């Protein structure tokens, strides 16, 4: 009895293997089998170019900050502490769109009396610097 059940089990097992595995199926010619498997597993997998640089973004786009005329502390970071002048795009490292917006908002703040034209609030003078005017992203015009 024990032998019979073992043989039956073995038979069941091999049946399962035969039905699932292609390796043991005889009626498939080796060439076809090879082609099929090459197309599935031997194919080079898709991979992104590992040497490609990450896309550079300006600080306002990256952090998704919208310049606002009431946010004087942020706007005064783009202003010289000595002359109150708005730094250019080559110094601030902002994209064209954001630089235009920052300049607009600074003008609005100045008109509303929130921000000085030639001065920077002393409280904001020691804020962390977003850029160094002496080492601009692109060279000065002069």
């Amino acid at each position, binding site marked *: 009895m024990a032998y019979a059940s073992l043989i039956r089990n073995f038979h069941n097992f091999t049946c399962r293997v035969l039905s699932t595995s292609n390796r043991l199926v005889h009626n498939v010619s080796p060439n076809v089998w090879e082609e099929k498997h090459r197309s599935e597993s031997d194919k080079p997998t898709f991979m992104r170019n590992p040497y490609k640089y990450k896309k550079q*973004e300006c600080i306002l786009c990256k952090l998704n900050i*919208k310049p606002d005329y009431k946010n004087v502390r942020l706007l005064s970071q783009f202003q010289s502490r000595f002359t109150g002048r708005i730094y250019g795009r080559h110094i601030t490292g902002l*994209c064209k*769109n954001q630089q235009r917006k920052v300049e607009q908002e600074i003008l609005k703040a100045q008109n509303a*009396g929130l921000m*000085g034209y030639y001065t920077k609030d002393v409280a904001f003078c020691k804020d962390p610097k977003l850029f160094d005017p002496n080492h601009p992203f692109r060279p000065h015009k002069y």
Partner: protein
Amino acid sequence: MPIYELPLLLRIMPKPEIVSTLKRAATAIFEKGGFIRKIENLGQKDLPAKTSSHGVVSRQAHYFVIYFDVPPKHISNLEDIFNRDIDIVRNRIYKHDLTVNNKPCTLEDELKPPPYRRDVQKLLKITERQESRKKKFSYKSGLNYYPFQK
């Protein structure tokens, strides 16, 4: 009705007078058929520069921002009313910015050397087209010399 923002700078005065000035400004808005969404008090602060308004020099001001809706045709009227108010040092009316920034950052393109930038390439294309439109003297026209000044 679009949303507007009104940064109001009031001269230094005791609290009841500030209240009455704000009430005056608010009623002016209500009379024009508008409504107020929010009033922000930014506190008493130093002005960036000494400012003279209505014959009085002020170095400090009470800062308020009023968010309100009003039909656009009344904006100039409101400005006139606020400019006449002697307790208001400065006022501006700005449109409330509701736009969402969904433009992709173009910094990468801008940092490239000029001939690789998209806007420069556009300019180059325009000049190319203009140059191609100009008539060029052809040496095969029978003349053996260039007839124009070089």
